[in-house]
Structure formats: structure tokens, C-alpha cells
């Protein structure tokens, strides 16, 4: 049997692409002419994989759905997926690769705010459109980026309101020690003070801290009316475990800006997780038709819907928003795409109506205040179409299209 080098390369090349997570067989893409390249960098393994894995699945699902409906502009979408392994250094490397070698048309990726800031400028310089689809601390003002996750004004403010009303006016804040936690804790202080409450103390924890014994004792010493946790990742999960193990979950109520985002409510037993209050765009208990449809599709593609969480839905909605923009622009041309993004485009996602705000490139989202009950996120209260008013305070990309900054609240 003869086997030329060219045949071999074609074979291994397509195998390699499939291994990278490209969702369409190579031959089909070739038959269509050049595909639209959708880049993605996500932590599919490591400390942050509870967030990343479902996001990768959501990316696959969205791309397959768009392709099954005939693609965009008559072209198929090809996903170029990289696993950053919870390692910031890999983010910068893959961002360079996506912009220089793969020359992607858009990138949907990044999980932690540290990773976003590590790659944002790379895409900005390369004029390569970038979607960040994760809840974050708000304030990014850059015409090259679209942020479709919730910001503090959307999710933190309502939860602080409910907590102050329900539990009382003193709080103890625990936050992850990087830009997300630091800036979010400022917003927490801002909203708690605004609501007539007081933050007794704020503690920061690097992502690998997993022993919270002294912290739990300190919280009891301060006797807050409630605790806010803006903790991130697998190691920080231990806090919720140790909190429950000491029996504190029965004594001081807990709310969180991040809990549930990585399906923490499934990792904890019902007894450990019950009663934690959270706010976000998505709950699997959402009854809107788009969510039912989405869950059915997810279940069919991946066997079950166990892993679907807030930012997997965010990623899905981000890609669908981008697709809506491409359709509206009728082209991938940068100026036409930016015009479409700034036209108030809107989709029906699993989390409700999602509309892009032209001034900030952020999303206007429905917010649910939810309580963990029996490993489920039960919706207690719903706020329709909340704008990213924190970022809106500082950012107007129509007036200052050259802005390239992340704004923070002054306290």
C-alpha cells in the first residue's frame, strides 16, 4: 500500500483539528470553502475546570446549532479551541496563536478576570474581535471587546439589597485575591454602604488557599449579620465545606457572587449547601421556552444537563449574540461588525432576553435572586432587563471609541 506524505499530512491534520475540539469534519469544511473561524481559550482542566468544561461544551453546542441551521453568511463555523489548563501563561500564548497563526474572525474565551486582562490587549492590538462571556467585576471599556456576563450593578446590587433587608446591616466579605475579587469587594462595599449597611471586614485569599479555619473563627468574632463570598475555583470550594462542617451554615447566613457558577451546589451535599443566596442571569429552573429548548438540546448532545451553569449559558448566549451581529452586518468586516454590535441587537437566550448595550458593549440581562435548596437553584425574585449601570457611569464607546480602560468604583 502506498501512502504519500501529502495524504498522511491531510489525515493527521484533520485528526489533529478534531482533537483540538473542531466540531465539524475537515472534509465538510473544505467542501464549503473557507469556514468562519471562531477561536476559544478556556480552562478545560485544572483548578478552574468546573467553570471551563461546561463552557467548552456550550461552545460546541452553539457552533453545531449554527452550522445545522446552515451556518453564517453561507459559511460554516469552525471552532479553534485551546485548553489553557488554568494557567495564565497559556492564555497569552494561545491568544497570540489565535491572532497570528489561526487568524480567527472572533474569539470567545477567558474565564477569570486575570485571564481576560492577560489577553484583552493582544486582541485589541490585532483588531481581532473578542467576546468575554463570564460574570465579572465590570468597568471594561474597550470597543474591541463585548462582555456578555453580569456585572456588579446587575447581580451584586440586587443580592445586597435582599440580604440587607432579610438579614440585617453588617457584613463580612471574603474575596478571591486578584482583580475580580478586589474590584468586586469594592462594589460590595459601595452597595452595602449605599443600602445603609456596614462591611465589618474584607479578607482576600489567593486561589490556592484551602484552609479557612482561622477565617471562620474570625467571622464569628466579628458577628456579622451575613457573610458575602466572592471566592473562585476548586480550592476555595473548601470554604463552603468547612463553613458547613463547623455548623456555621445554621448560624450566620451566607450569600455569594460566584457560588453556583461552577456548579458548587452539586459538589456540596444538600445539607451543606441549603440556604446560600446567590444572584445571576441563569437558573436551570427558568421556565422560559428558550431554556427548555436549550436544555433539551444540551441533554441530547451530552447525555444529561447536570453540568449546565451560569457561565456555560453566558458563553452560549455570547456566541448567539455574535451570530446575530454577523447576520445583521451581512459581513465579517470589522467596521460593519462594530456597527451591528452597537445597533442594540437582541436574542432570546436560556437566561431570558439578552440585549447588547451600544454604549458599553455589555449585555442588558434578566437577573434572578436564587436560593440553594436541595442542590437546586430556586428562583426567589426576578429583575427584568437590568442594564450594566456600573459600567455605564464611566463608559461611552460611542463618544470615546478609542477608550481602552477598566474603570473601578471609588470608595
Amino acid at each position, binding site marked *: 500500500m502506498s501512502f504519500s506524505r501529502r495524504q498522511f499530512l491531510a489525515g493527521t491534520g484533520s485528526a489533529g483539528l478534531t482533537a483540538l475540539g473542531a466540531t465539524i469534519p475537515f472534509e465538510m469544511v473544505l467542501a464549503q470553502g473557507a469556514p468562519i473561524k471562531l477561536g476559544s481559550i478556556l480552562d478545560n*482542566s*485544572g*483548578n478552574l*475546570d*468546573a467553570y471551563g468544561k461546561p463552557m467548552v461544551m456550550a461552545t460546541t453546542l452553539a457552533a453545531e446549532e449554527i452550522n445545522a441551521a446552515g451556518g453564517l453568511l453561507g459559511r460554516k463555523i469552525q471552532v479553534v479551541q485551546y485548553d489553557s*489548563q488554568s494557567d495564565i501563561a497559556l492564555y497569552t500564548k494561545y491568544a497570540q496563536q489565535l491572532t497570528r497563526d489561526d487568524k480567527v474572525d472572533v474569539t470567545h474565551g477567558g474565564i477569570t478576570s486575570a485571564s481576560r486582562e492577560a489577553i484583552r490587549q493582544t486582541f485589541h492590538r490585532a483588531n481581532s474581535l473578542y467576546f468575554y462571556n463570564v460574570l465579572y467585576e465590570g468597568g471594561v471599556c474597550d470597543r474591541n471587546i463585548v462582555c456578555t456576563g453580569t456585572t456588579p450593578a446587575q447581580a451584586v446590587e440586587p443580592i445586597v439589597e435582599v440580604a440587607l433587608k432579610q438579614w440585617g446591616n453588617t457584613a463580612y466579605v471574603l474575596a478571591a*485575591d486578584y482583580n475580580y475579587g478586589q474590584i468586586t469587594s469594592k462594589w460590595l462595599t459601595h452597595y452595602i454602604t449605599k443600602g445603609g449597611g456596614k462591611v465589618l471586614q474584607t*479578607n*482576600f*485569599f*489567593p486561589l*490556592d*488557599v*484551602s*484552609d*479557612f*479555619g*482561622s*477565617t*471562620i*473563627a*474570625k467571622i*464569628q*468574632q466579628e458577628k456579622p449579620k451575613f457573610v458575602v463570598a466572592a471566592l473562585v*475555583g*476548586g*480550592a476555595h*470550594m*473548601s470554604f463552603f*465545606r*468547612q463553613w*458547613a*462542617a*463547623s*455548623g*456555621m451554615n445554621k*448560624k450566620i447566613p451566607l450569600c455569594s457572587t460566584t457560588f453556583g457558577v461552577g456548579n458548587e451546589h452539586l*459538589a*456540596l*451535599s444538600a445539607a*451543606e449547601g441549603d440556604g446560600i443566596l446567590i444572584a445571576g442571569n441563569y437558573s436551570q429552573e427558568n421556565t422560559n421556552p428558550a431554556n427548555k429548548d436549550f436544555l433539551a438540546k444540551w441533554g441530547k448532545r451530552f447525555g444529561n444537563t447536570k453540568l449546565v451553569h451560569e457561565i456555560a449559558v453566558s458563553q452560549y448566549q455570547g456566541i448567539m449574540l455574535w451570530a446575530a451581529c454577523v447576520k445583521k452586518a451581512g459581513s465579517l468586516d470589522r467596521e460593519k461588525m462594530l456597527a451591528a454590535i452597537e445597533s442594540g441587537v437582541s436574542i432570546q437566550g436560556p437566561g431570558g432576553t439578552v440585549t447588547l448595550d451600544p454604549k458599553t458593549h455589555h449585555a442588558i440581562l434578566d437577573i434572578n435572586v436564587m436560593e440553594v435548596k436541595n442542590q437546586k437553584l430556586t428562583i426567589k425574585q426576578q429583575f427584568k432587563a437590568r442594564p450594566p449601570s456600573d459600567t455605564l457611569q464611566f463608559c461611552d464607546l460611542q463618544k470615546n471609541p478609542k477608550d481602552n480602560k477598566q474603570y473601578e468604583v471609588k470608595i
Partner: protein
Amino acid sequence: MDYAAVVLLEIIYMIAFLALTSAGLAVVFGMMRVINLAHGEFVMIGGYTTIACAKADINIYFAMLVISPLVVGILGLLVERLVVRHLYGRMIDTMLATWGLSLLMVGIITFIFGNTAVSVPAPIPGYELGEFQMGGYNLFIIGIATLLIICMWLVMRFTRLGLVARGAMQSADVASSLGYDPKRVYMWTFTVGAALSGLAGGVLAPLTGLLPSSGGAYIAKAFITVITGGAAVITGTLSSSVIFGTINQLVSFGSTPVIGEIVMLAFAVVLLRLMPQGITGRFFRNAP
């Protein structure tokens, strides 16, 4: 008043944590002068064993107290027979080989369990101390660590086994001329050290949760504890655990756990500068 008791309990817990995680290393490094860079991975595998057993509905105490030490002990025996025994007396080579092993073990565990955080709920509920809620499981860890230290001391001090082990470490030639094969002694010492690491991993697993890379978090503290402890395995480990545990927790309470760790490490550097032979190089010289 209650708060003082809480702080004291947290300090004792940290001491127990340090003693537990460094006991295995102390036996291997302190007695054999073998630097086992795969120590953290032994602890990590002990933890994974316990979690895997608990998920398979095996009694969690049986898993952490029997299965984990057994599994990691056997692993240690294999490592000693296949790798370490060829490298006795070659410190740098041993370090390189065990470091390679640690990477291999992280890889294998990642392959089996995935690079994902796993954990089990602590099997003991919390209790009230005055107006404070405390983790009941911490008391269990303190108990296990105390028991472990006492057992180690009894074995080393009063049994023939301990005497032979100490003798072979001090002078292999004399021990062998008296009819004891130092190679066998080394083999069993390494195995026991590994089993102790497995025990530590198993007992600590419900408290912190695990990743395949968790070994790294144990090894640094364990090494500092053992090296600062100095030549005497038990007294050394215990005294440095007490010093570092106290400093770490006191500073953690006064500021944050991060600063606590920094101060502890800084203090270790100063201590080693003042006492290059470790604490037991200067004090308690003849203790076991």
C-alpha cells in the same frame, strides 16, 4: 475567653496538621537522608484513595486509617525497590529521580480521576464552644496526630525494631556486622514513611478537597518542618511543628492566612541561619 480557646484550638490543629504531613517525610529524610520529592504526591494519593473509597461506599474511617496507608505503603515499597534503592548515597540523583516520580504520579492521577477538584464531606459534625461554632473534624485530626507521635515514640524508644532502625541509620556497617541487613532496614523504613504519608493524606482529605497538583501544597511545609526540626525524627518534627504552627495561626488571626504563611516561611529562613543543623542540632540532642 471563648475566642482565646478558639485561637488555641486552631493553633493546635495547625501543629497537628504540620506533624501529620511531615511525619512520613521525617522518617524517610531524617533517618535515611533520602530527599523524597515525591512526598507530597504520596500524601495526595493517600487522599485520593480515601475519597475514592468513600465514593464507593466503603466506611470512610476504615478507608483513611487502613486502606490509604496500605495503598501508599505498597506504592512506597515499589518505589524503593525499583528506584530509590539504586540511588542510596547519591542525594542529587535521588532528588531528580523522586521529582520525576512525582510528575509521573500527578500525571497518572490526572489520567484516572481527571484534573478536577474532588472532595467528601467531613464525617464529624461541628460543635459549639461557648458562642463559637467549631469544626468537629479538626479534633479528630488533632487526636490522630497525637496518637501517631506517641506510637512513633514508643516504637523508636522501646522496641527492638526501633533500635535496629536507629542503629542501621547511624552506622550501617556496625548494624550489618551484627547481622542486620541495612538494605532490608532501609526498605521497610521507606515503606513505613510512605504509609505515614498515605495516612496523612487520607485523614486530611475531607477537610480540604484535592486536585492532582495538591501534593505541592504539602511538600513545601513538610520539608521546612523536617529540615528545621533537625536530626531527631520525632522531637525535631514536633518542636518545629509547634513553632511554625503557632506562628502561622497567630499571624493568620492577626491579619490573613497569606501573611501567616509568609511570616512562617520568613521565620524558617532566620531559624535555619541561626541553627543550620536544625532545632535538634542545638537542643534535645539525644532525643529520638
